[in-house]
Protein backbone atom coordinates (compact mmCIF):
# COMPACT_ATOMS: atom_id res chain seq x y z
CA UNK A 1 0.00 0.00 0.00
CA UNK A 2 1.15 3.49 -0.68
CA UNK A 3 0.60 6.57 1.41
CA UNK A 4 -0.01 10.10 0.21
CA UNK A 5 1.47 13.11 1.90
CA UNK A 6 2.40 16.67 1.11
CA UNK A 7 5.65 16.50 -0.78
CA UNK A 8 5.77 20.26 -1.38
CA UNK A 9 6.65 21.67 -4.77
CA UNK A 10 8.83 19.05 -6.37
CA UNK A 11 9.93 21.46 -9.09
CA UNK A 12 11.53 23.54 -6.33
CA UNK A 13 15.02 22.28 -7.06
CA UNK A 14 16.38 24.29 -4.15
CA UNK A 15 15.29 21.25 -2.12
CA UNK A 16 17.16 18.75 -4.27
CA UNK A 17 19.28 17.52 -1.39
CA UNK A 18 16.09 16.34 0.32
CA UNK A 19 14.96 14.30 -2.70
CA UNK A 20 14.75 10.54 -2.15
CA UNK A 21 15.55 7.88 -4.77
CA UNK A 22 11.82 7.53 -5.52
CA UNK A 23 11.49 11.23 -6.15
CA UNK A 24 14.53 11.31 -8.46
CA UNK A 25 13.04 8.35 -10.34
CA UNK A 26 9.77 10.23 -10.75
CA UNK A 27 11.50 13.43 -11.95
CA UNK A 28 13.72 11.53 -14.41
CA UNK A 29 10.75 9.52 -15.70
CA UNK A 30 8.84 12.73 -16.34
CA UNK A 31 11.88 14.42 -17.94
CA UNK A 32 12.59 11.47 -20.27
CA UNK A 33 8.86 11.26 -21.09
CA UNK A 34 8.78 14.90 -22.23
CA UNK A 35 11.80 14.23 -24.46
CA UNK A 36 10.25 11.10 -25.99
CA UNK A 37 6.90 12.69 -26.87
CA UNK A 38 8.73 15.73 -28.28
CA UNK A 39 10.91 13.41 -30.33
CA UNK A 40 7.87 11.50 -31.65
CA UNK A 41 6.55 14.68 -33.31
CA UNK A 42 10.01 15.42 -34.76
CA UNK A 43 10.38 11.81 -35.94
CA UNK A 44 7.08 11.85 -37.86
CA UNK A 45 8.02 15.24 -39.36
CA UNK A 46 11.34 13.90 -40.68
CA UNK A 47 9.75 10.67 -41.99
CA UNK A 48 7.13 12.81 -43.77
CA UNK A 49 9.77 13.54 -46.43
CA UNK A 50 8.70 10.11 -47.78
CA UNK A 51 5.44 11.74 -48.92
CA UNK A 52 7.40 14.08 -51.22
CA UNK A 53 9.63 11.58 -53.00
CA UNK A 54 11.67 8.45 -52.25
CA UNK A 55 14.85 10.40 -53.09
CA UNK A 56 14.06 13.18 -50.62
CA UNK A 57 13.45 10.58 -47.87
CA UNK A 58 16.69 8.72 -48.52
CA UNK A 59 18.74 11.92 -48.92
CA UNK A 60 17.27 13.46 -45.74
CA UNK A 61 17.94 10.40 -43.58
CA UNK A 62 21.41 9.80 -44.99
CA UNK A 63 22.20 13.53 -44.76
CA UNK A 64 21.24 13.58 -41.08
CA UNK A 65 23.21 10.41 -40.40
CA UNK A 66 26.30 12.02 -41.94
CA UNK A 67 26.34 14.58 -39.11
CA UNK A 68 28.36 13.62 -36.02
CA UNK A 69 26.04 15.62 -33.76
CA UNK A 70 23.08 13.51 -34.92
CA UNK A 71 24.95 10.32 -33.99
CA UNK A 72 25.54 11.68 -30.47
CA UNK A 73 21.90 12.77 -30.22
CA UNK A 74 20.91 9.20 -31.14
CA UNK A 75 23.03 7.83 -28.28
CA UNK A 76 21.27 10.33 -25.99
CA UNK A 77 17.89 9.26 -27.33
CA UNK A 78 18.75 5.60 -26.72
CA UNK A 79 19.76 6.42 -23.12
CA UNK A 80 16.50 8.34 -22.61
CA UNK A 81 14.40 5.52 -24.08
CA UNK A 82 16.22 2.77 -22.16
CA UNK A 83 15.85 4.60 -18.84
CA UNK A 84 12.15 5.29 -19.51
CA UNK A 85 11.60 1.60 -20.36
CA UNK A 86 13.53 0.24 -17.34
CA UNK A 87 12.03 2.71 -14.88
CA UNK A 88 8.64 2.06 -16.49
CA UNK A 89 8.99 -1.66 -15.72
CA UNK A 90 9.96 -0.64 -12.17
CA UNK A 91 6.82 1.55 -11.93
CA UNK A 92 4.62 -1.32 -13.12
CA UNK A 93 6.17 -3.52 -10.42
CA UNK A 94 5.55 -0.83 -7.79
CA UNK A 95 1.91 -0.52 -8.91
CA UNK A 96 1.55 -4.30 -8.66
CA UNK A 97 3.03 -4.18 -5.16
CA UNK A 98 6.07 -6.22 -6.18
CA UNK A 99 9.38 -5.42 -4.45
CA UNK A 100 8.19 -2.23 -2.78
CA UNK A 101 10.93 -2.37 -0.16
CA UNK A 102 13.62 -2.58 -2.88
CA UNK A 103 12.30 0.14 -5.15
CA UNK A 104 15.25 2.44 -4.48
CA UNK A 105 17.62 -0.36 -5.46
CA UNK A 106 15.69 -1.00 -8.69
CA UNK A 107 16.00 2.73 -9.50
CA UNK A 108 19.79 2.57 -9.11
CA UNK A 109 19.81 -0.63 -11.18
CA UNK A 110 17.84 1.20 -13.93
CA UNK A 111 20.44 3.99 -13.97
CA UNK A 112 23.40 1.60 -14.08
CA UNK A 113 21.85 -0.59 -16.80
CA UNK A 114 21.00 2.51 -18.86
CA UNK A 115 24.60 3.71 -18.61
CA UNK A 116 25.98 0.28 -19.59
CA UNK A 117 23.63 -0.07 -22.60
CA UNK A 118 24.27 3.52 -23.77
CA UNK A 119 28.05 3.10 -23.50
CA UNK A 120 27.94 -0.29 -25.24
CA UNK A 121 25.94 1.25 -28.11
CA UNK A 122 28.56 3.93 -28.88
CA UNK A 123 30.55 1.84 -31.42
CA UNK A 124 27.32 0.99 -33.29
CA UNK A 125 26.06 4.58 -33.40
CA UNK A 126 29.41 6.08 -34.39
CA UNK A 127 30.12 3.34 -36.96
CA UNK A 128 31.43 4.72 -40.27
CA UNK A 129 31.95 8.26 -38.95
CA UNK A 130 35.73 8.15 -38.57
Amino acid at each position, binding site marked *: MSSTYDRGTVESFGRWQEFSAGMWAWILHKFTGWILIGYLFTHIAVLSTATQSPEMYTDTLQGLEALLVVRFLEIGLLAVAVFH*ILNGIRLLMVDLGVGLESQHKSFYASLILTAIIALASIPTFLGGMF
Partner: protein
Amino acid sequence: MAEHYSSFQRGSMRWLLQRVTAVFLIGALAFHFVLLHFVNHAADITFAGTQARMSEIGYFTLMIVFLVTAAFHGLNGVYNALINMGLEGTKRKVVAAVLVVAGVLLVAQGTYVAVVMSGFL
Protein backbone atom coordinates in the same frame (compact mmCIF):
# COMPACT_ATOMS: atom_id res chain seq x y z
CA MET B 1 4.67 2.07 4.06
CA ALA B 2 6.64 2.47 0.86
CA GLU B 3 6.81 5.88 -0.73
CA HIS B 4 5.04 6.25 -4.03
CA TYR B 5 5.53 9.12 -6.46
CA SER B 6 3.37 9.41 -9.54
CA SER B 7 1.75 12.08 -11.68
CA PHE B 8 -1.32 9.86 -11.91
CA GLN B 9 -4.27 9.32 -9.61
CA ARG B 10 -4.15 5.59 -8.92
CA GLY B 11 -7.18 3.63 -10.03
CA SER B 12 -8.40 6.22 -12.55
CA MET B 13 -9.10 5.28 -16.18
CA ARG B 14 -6.23 7.49 -17.40
CA TRP B 15 -3.89 5.72 -14.96
CA LEU B 16 -5.05 2.27 -16.13
CA LEU B 17 -4.73 3.10 -19.85
CA GLN B 18 -1.25 4.53 -19.20
CA ARG B 19 -0.21 1.19 -17.65
CA VAL B 20 -1.81 -0.94 -20.39
CA THR B 21 -0.14 1.08 -23.18
CA ALA B 22 3.15 0.98 -21.23
CA VAL B 23 3.20 -2.83 -21.30
CA PHE B 24 2.85 -2.82 -25.11
CA LEU B 25 5.31 0.06 -25.59
CA ILE B 26 8.07 -1.62 -23.55
CA GLY B 27 8.26 -4.33 -26.20
CA ALA B 28 7.44 -2.19 -29.24
CA LEU B 29 9.95 0.58 -28.50
CA ALA B 30 12.74 -1.87 -27.72
CA PHE B 31 11.97 -3.80 -30.94
CA HIS B 32 11.88 -0.57 -32.99
CA PHE B 33 15.25 0.63 -31.65
CA VAL B 34 16.98 -2.72 -32.07
CA LEU B 35 15.63 -3.26 -35.61
CA LEU B 36 16.43 0.23 -36.93
CA HIS B 37 19.73 0.89 -35.19
CA PHE B 38 21.35 -2.45 -34.51
CA VAL B 39 19.97 -4.91 -37.11
CA ASN B 40 19.58 -2.27 -39.85
CA HIS B 41 21.85 0.72 -39.26
CA ALA B 42 20.13 4.09 -39.55
CA ALA B 43 22.88 5.40 -41.85
CA ASP B 44 22.10 2.64 -44.38
CA ILE B 45 18.34 3.25 -44.49
CA THR B 46 16.86 3.90 -47.92
CA PHE B 47 13.29 4.33 -49.09
CA ALA B 48 13.48 0.92 -50.81
CA GLY B 49 14.43 -0.78 -47.53
CA THR B 50 11.72 1.07 -45.61
CA GLN B 51 9.15 0.10 -48.26
CA ALA B 52 10.20 -3.55 -48.08
CA ARG B 53 9.49 -3.57 -44.33
CA MET B 54 6.31 -1.50 -44.46
CA SER B 55 4.77 -3.58 -47.26
CA GLU B 56 4.62 -6.50 -44.80
CA ILE B 57 1.10 -6.26 -43.39
CA GLY B 58 2.17 -7.52 -39.96
CA TYR B 59 4.97 -4.94 -39.66
CA PHE B 60 2.72 -2.18 -41.05
CA THR B 61 0.00 -3.00 -38.50
CA LEU B 62 2.54 -3.10 -35.67
CA MET B 63 3.85 0.36 -36.65
CA ILE B 64 0.33 1.84 -36.74
CA VAL B 65 -0.54 0.37 -33.33
CA PHE B 66 2.85 1.58 -32.05
CA LEU B 67 2.11 5.10 -33.32
CA VAL B 68 -1.36 5.23 -31.74
CA THR B 69 -0.27 3.84 -28.37
CA ALA B 70 2.88 6.00 -28.22
CA ALA B 71 0.90 9.15 -29.07
CA PHE B 72 -1.73 8.32 -26.44
CA HIS B 73 0.83 7.34 -23.77
CA GLY B 74 2.94 10.45 -24.38
CA LEU B 75 0.10 12.97 -24.51
CA ASN B 76 -1.76 11.34 -21.60
CA GLY B 77 1.50 11.52 -19.64
CA VAL B 78 1.89 15.22 -20.43
CA TYR B 79 -1.75 15.90 -19.47
CA ASN B 80 -1.49 14.10 -16.13
CA ALA B 81 1.87 15.71 -15.33
CA LEU B 82 0.34 19.15 -15.90
CA ILE B 83 -2.69 18.29 -13.73
CA ASN B 84 -0.31 17.05 -11.04
CA MET B 85 1.50 20.39 -11.27
CA GLY B 86 -1.75 22.27 -10.59
CA LEU B 87 -3.49 22.67 -13.96
CA GLU B 88 -7.25 23.08 -13.42
CA GLY B 89 -10.44 24.77 -14.57
CA THR B 90 -10.69 26.31 -18.03
CA LYS B 91 -6.95 26.03 -18.64
CA ARG B 92 -7.20 22.27 -18.06
CA LYS B 93 -10.00 21.99 -20.65
CA VAL B 94 -8.06 24.06 -23.19
CA VAL B 95 -4.90 21.99 -22.65
CA ALA B 96 -6.93 18.76 -23.01
CA ALA B 97 -8.43 20.01 -26.29
CA VAL B 98 -5.01 21.07 -27.65
CA LEU B 99 -3.47 17.71 -26.73
CA VAL B 100 -6.35 15.77 -28.33
CA VAL B 101 -6.03 17.80 -31.56
CA ALA B 102 -2.23 17.38 -31.53
CA GLY B 103 -2.64 13.63 -31.02
CA VAL B 104 -5.20 13.26 -33.82
CA LEU B 105 -2.99 15.25 -36.23
CA LEU B 106 0.09 13.23 -35.24
CA VAL B 107 -1.67 9.89 -35.78
CA ALA B 108 -3.25 11.10 -39.05
CA GLN B 109 0.09 12.33 -40.45
CA GLY B 110 1.93 9.24 -39.22
CA THR B 111 -0.66 6.94 -40.79
CA TYR B 112 -0.44 8.86 -44.09
CA VAL B 113 3.37 8.52 -44.03
CA ALA B 114 3.10 4.79 -43.25
CA VAL B 115 0.65 4.23 -46.12
CA VAL B 116 2.96 6.08 -48.56
CA MET B 117 5.95 4.07 -47.32
CA SER B 118 4.08 0.79 -47.72
CA GLY B 119 3.20 1.46 -51.35
CA PHE B 120 -0.43 0.46 -50.62
CA LEU B 121 -1.63 3.75 -52.16
